[in-house]
């Protein structure tokens, strides 16, 4: 029986101090700065999105505050031939895959065109999956298609701790196991599914151990340590590419904010519970490490923040200036060829 590593894999402690030898990539300043910049940009995007929502200019939005290391770590080692199948909380990973901030704003602003990713890298990626956990069977299907077509790509799906209670997750993981499909299932275990605590979600000690049910390896990783997430994902990806199948990766982190802008977490959790987690969060952690190990300067930090905020603001402006699509558009993409009855119904709505 596979024995999921119940010891959490971690490279940096909360202060950014290495607790074991760093992998090669993590000794390179540039690589770490790229990871850091991506996390900072994600945080800036989140802040802007929440602000837009609060002022009525965006729909319900789920911030990834405090969970940036997961998506960034995962996407940073994915290749062009891989396919990303995200939950609704992996904005950072989506951006790293080439989805533009304008597209993300459009999506969360309630416009389907936000899912028509222009970037070649993201062209085959899936839009976010709202029905929790239902992306896992699809990811298994993507993996099957990749194998069947002789591609060397891997299907990478991300979902939350709550998603691990869905039958979809389990059925898909079981199929990945029995068909040895190149799929990596990543769990963003942010300790909460809206108001449900992780320990009320399942009696399993770790979420990674759920892989035992499917006979595939499971790993627990510190989800606030982008180096660890990246390293573990890289291993799972090479394993998948080499052929012996899928891996379940549990990334342990914490949801610092509300579930979404529609949620008020103060109804069900105390601030005192949240506070200590601010000390663990991934952006600060990597900054500490960059400062200590690579002389990351105040100027560099300020330039990065400015640049991130500027790019986010610019994207928001483009989004806000984008007119809604023509009402007819809702009919035009239902089928490759519009059936007669739909064309008749479309006659009801204005042409532009």
């Amino acid at each position, binding site marked *: 029986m596979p024995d999921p590593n119940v010891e959490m894999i971690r490279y940096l402690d909360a202060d950014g101090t290495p607790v074991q030898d760093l992998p090669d990539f993590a000794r390179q300043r540039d690589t770490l700065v790229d990871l850091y910049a991506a996390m900072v940009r994600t945080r800036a995007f989140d802040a802007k999105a929440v602000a837009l929502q609060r002022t009525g200019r965006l*729909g*319900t939005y789920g911030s990834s505050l405090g969970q940036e290391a997961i998506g960034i770590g995962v996407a940073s080692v994915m290749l062009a031939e891989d396919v990303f199948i995200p939950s*609704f909380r992996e904005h950072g990973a989506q951006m790293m895959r080439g989805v533009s901030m304008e597209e993300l704003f459009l*999506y969360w*602003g*309630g*416009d*389907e065109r936000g899912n028509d990713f222009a970037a070649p890298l993201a062209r085959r990626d899936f839009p976010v999956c*709202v*029905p*929790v*956990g239902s992306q896992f069977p699809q990811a298994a299907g993507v993996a099957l298609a990749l194998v069947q077509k002789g591609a060397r790509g891997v299907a990478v799906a991300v979902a939350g701790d*709550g*998603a691990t*209670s*869905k*039958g979809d997750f389990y059925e898909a993981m079981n199929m990945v196991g029995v068909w040895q499909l190149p799929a990596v299932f990543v769990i963003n275990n942010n300790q909460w*599914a*809206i*108001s*449900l605590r992780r320990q*009320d*979600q*399942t009696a399993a000690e770790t979420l990674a151990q759920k892989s035992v049910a499917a006979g595939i390896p499971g790993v627990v990783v510190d989800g606030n340590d982008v180096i660890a997430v990246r390293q573990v994902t890289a291993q799972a990806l090479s394993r998948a590419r080499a052929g012996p199948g899928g891996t379940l990766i549990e990334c342990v982190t914490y949801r610092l904010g509300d579930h979404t802008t*529609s*949620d008020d977490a103060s*109804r*069900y959790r105390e601030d005192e519970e949240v506070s200590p987690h601010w000390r663990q969060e991934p952006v600060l952690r990597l900054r500490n490490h960059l400062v200590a190990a690579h002389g990351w300067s105040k100027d560099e930090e300020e330039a990065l923040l400015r640049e991130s905020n500027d790019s986010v603001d610019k994207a928001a402006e483009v989004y806000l200036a984008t007119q*809604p*699509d023509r*009402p007819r*558009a*809702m*009919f035009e993409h*239902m089928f490759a060829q519009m059936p007669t*009855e*739909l064309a008749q*119904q*479309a006659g*009801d*709505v*204005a042409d532009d």
Partner: protein
Amino acid sequence: MTEMTMIEAIRTALARAMDDDPDVILMGEDVGINGGVFRATDGLIQRFGASRVRDTPLSETAIAGVAVGAAVQGLRPVAEIQFMGFLYPAIDQLANHAARFRNRTRGRLTCPMVLRAPYGGGIGAPEHHSESMEAMLAHIPGLRVVSPSSPAKAYGLLLAAIRDPDPVVFLEPKRLYRAGSETVTDDGAALPLDTAFRLREGADLTIVGWGAMLSEVNEAADQLAGEGISAEVIDLATLKPYDRAMVRASVEKTGRCVIVHEAPLTAGFGAEIAADLAEHSLTSLLAPVHRVTGYDTVMPYPRLEAHYMPSTERILKAARAVMEFQ
């Protein structure tokens, strides 16, 4: 007698049912300490305890299946599916089990459960949060499907659903949760599940609707009145089995019928009503039956949602077409 919004009326009915009957338990995602994402169960865990107000894992199949098992074994579970768009995994348990226990055991085992779910659009919610698929459920033999159109109806119909000895799907038009309030008396009086409600008497045409669409229907009826057209408005309330007699009688009186629903046109529940009229009241029809519905498209994201929703204007257009028909 208190002014209540629909969400308050639902909460009040749940509390009343739990007070009256210790076998009534609530379960669903976030129904406990969070009080439900729409606050339908706010305060109930404090009042009735965590063993009767149960936060479930994120497992719609199990929510339905656990409710079925518990109901068959003598509880009266009221399970919540957080949004109708996430109800599909519960259909297997509803269709293959809940709806059949009484029949397949010839009455030995029964399944007095309620499955609540908010449904419908118009509030700018994210994708998968605005569906209206009541027709799929209404096609399943052995289920009752109910949808209230006002706080008082929500209160009385929900009590009836919980007390009913058979499974009931209770669909709550979330657009109405806080859209207005009315006087609701928390007297424990249930409303009947086998009669529709005539919201307005009229002579010229009948407009049939349910749930949130009654707002637009009533608005349209007001405007029509201004134009000298007297519309009879029927709130179906219970869709399955529905009050065919009242609808037929009304249309046999008025000779004209417009049916309104938010769900897509094709094989929507409006089809059943129109078909019933074509079958049983044909000779009374002075004009074609019109259906004003959502389109056969995916419910659009918020920016185009308004173009999908049946509007007062579209209802008026249909009503006028029906009146002008000759």
